[in-house]
């Protein structure tokens, strides 16, 4: 077999380096696209954020000027706090999803259809979810107002018209599809729970909450991790619902960073692209903390693999 390992003179450069070159050939189109549309724009945005720019004329270097302005901008403050509200309240989707998954994890007639219908809200676009909920919240005529009115609660201006409740109203709308997503993750996870361990724990007298906490949840860890990732990302990406339901109002009380950025750089108030870019950079840095954590946990997993 010495014959075949000898690089025969007739073999070309490609044939000799096939295993080394092939992955790069396969990666090339993907990396090219990704670099042009995702990687490079990130750096461009950072660069733009140091300029005053209306998107058309010359960029004017102002160093950290945009960021200094952010620090005193009331709109930025509101958006930032709203982002935090979104982050914390959105996480409710995880226990809520687990709860529904536990409720549906049975084998009765028609349960498959029930599971799909419970998952349904996730498939619908957020634009439609936003519209549906804004009708649900209509002042006076909305079903929500009718129901809480029944209990003697009156929200002046309706849920979305009242600066104190509007953000919570939108988050509730966002939780609806997000809970459905977490539910499906947990249903899949529950399916794979080791029945022998459950039986063994049962023989040891574990049941109810104890069983859930000590036996089931540890086995659901991968599902919880993914639910956590998608929920955090979803919370920080919230834009569609706000844009559809309140367009940032009333009195700018429902702005979040993503919406604020869009409003500053592309709206009737003018194209402040430089300022917008600096908001985007702040949002990116917040996200980067989470991305770093996700990648780190994935790296820990990878080390165990092949």
């Amino acid at each position, binding site marked *: 077999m010495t014959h075949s390992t000898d690089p025969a003179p007739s073999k070309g450069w490609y044939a000799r380096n096939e*295993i080394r070159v*092939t*992955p790069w050939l*396969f*990666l090339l*189109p*993907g*990396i090219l*696209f*990704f670099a*042009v*549309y*995702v*990687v490079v*724009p990130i750096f*461009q945005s950072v660069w733009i954020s140091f300029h005053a720019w209306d998107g058309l004329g010359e960029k004017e270097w102002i160093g950290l000027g945009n960021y200094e302005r952010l620090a005193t901008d009331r709109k930025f403050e509101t958006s930032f706090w709203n982002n935090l509200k979104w982050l914390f309240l959105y996480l409710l989707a995880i226990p809520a999803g687990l709860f529904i998954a536990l*409720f549906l*994890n*049975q084998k009765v007639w028609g349960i498959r259809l*029930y599971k*799909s*219908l419970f998952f*349904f809200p996730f*498939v*619908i*676009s*957020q*634009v*439609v979810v936003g*519209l*549906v909920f804004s*009708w*649900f919240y*209509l002042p006076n005529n*909305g*079903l929500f107002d009718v129901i809480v009115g029944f209990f003697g609660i009156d929200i002046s201006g309706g849920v979305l018209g009242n600066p104190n409740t509007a953000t919570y109203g939108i988050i509730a709308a966002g939780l609806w599809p997000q809970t459905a*997503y977490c539910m*499906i*993750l947990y249903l*899949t996870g*529950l399916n794979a*729970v080791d*029945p022998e361990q459950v039986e063994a724990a049962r023989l040891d007298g574990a049941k109810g909450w104890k069983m859930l906490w000590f036996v089931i949840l540890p086995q659901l860890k*991968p599902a919880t991790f993914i639910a956590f990732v998608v929920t955090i990302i979803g919370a920080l*990406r919230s*834009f*569609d619902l706000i*844009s559809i339901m309140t367009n940032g109002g009333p009195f700018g009380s429902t702005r979040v960073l*993503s919406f604020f*950025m*869009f409003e500053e*750089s592309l709206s009737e108030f003018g194209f402040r692209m430089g300022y*917008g*870019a600096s*908001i985007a950079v702040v949002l990116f840095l917040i*996200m980067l903390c*989470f991305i770093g954590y996700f*990648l780190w946990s*994935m790296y820990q997993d*990878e080390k165990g693999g092949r």
Partner: protein
Amino acid sequence: MFPTPIEKRSRGAQLTYQSLLPLALIMWLLPLIAVAMFSVKSSADFAAGNYWGLPSSFELFNNYGKVFFQSDMPRYMVNSLLITIPTVVGAVALSSMTGFALGIYKFKSNLWIFFMFIAGNFVPFQILMVPVRDLTVGLGLYDTKLGLVLFHIAFQTGFCTLFMRNFIRALPFELIEAARVEGIAEWRIFWYIVLPLMKPALAALSVLIFTFIWNDYFWAVVLTQGPDSQPVTAGITSFNSQFVAQYHLMSAGSIVAALPPVAMFFLMQKHFIAGLTLGAVK
């Protein structure tokens, strides 16, 4: 199985569960049921303040007829299809290649490139917005479907690569080794061995990306403007300003706009869920 299977519980518990199920479902889908009801009502119902009661007349054909024949809705739907389908094809094609490269070959920067794709996939859209819009304008593709498609392909490649690479990694590596011993060229291994095994992943990704792109709103607003190229998610806002406060028509329009991904989900449910829950089980 956890919780305890209901068939092992008392008769009373079983009956309670069986009756709770439909109740819970109705509560859960209440907003949707209400909108479906809106869409078959007449405008007279809303004028009379009958928002949440039963419709006084059944106007399904009338309302949906208006959506299809007296608005730009059909154009928006066609635009959405012309944006979504090329994106699905493009992103799946690119990522089956990147996934193959990252899943099969060992080289130094492998994990770094993989992480670059994942990290890029998690980035907030806003940090890309200004440069991508500039690039699209510069290429003369602003307000075209192609401009939107190119961006979507690029961005979705991140998520798709994660998916494909993990799927390929789970394939038996001996197959590839055996093929190499036979002296089969690497691209043939991809085309004749790996790709056929990837069919379930291709199906799962296609339905997922279809839904993601169909439902995209942000980029539609950033990169397109009018009924010539706007997809239905962005178009529905102008549809709604055409029929302002006519809830029966707005809700009919929303249902039409939401239908394709819903249909996709119910037809391809198994693949859809397999795709979404990838990694939820070790």
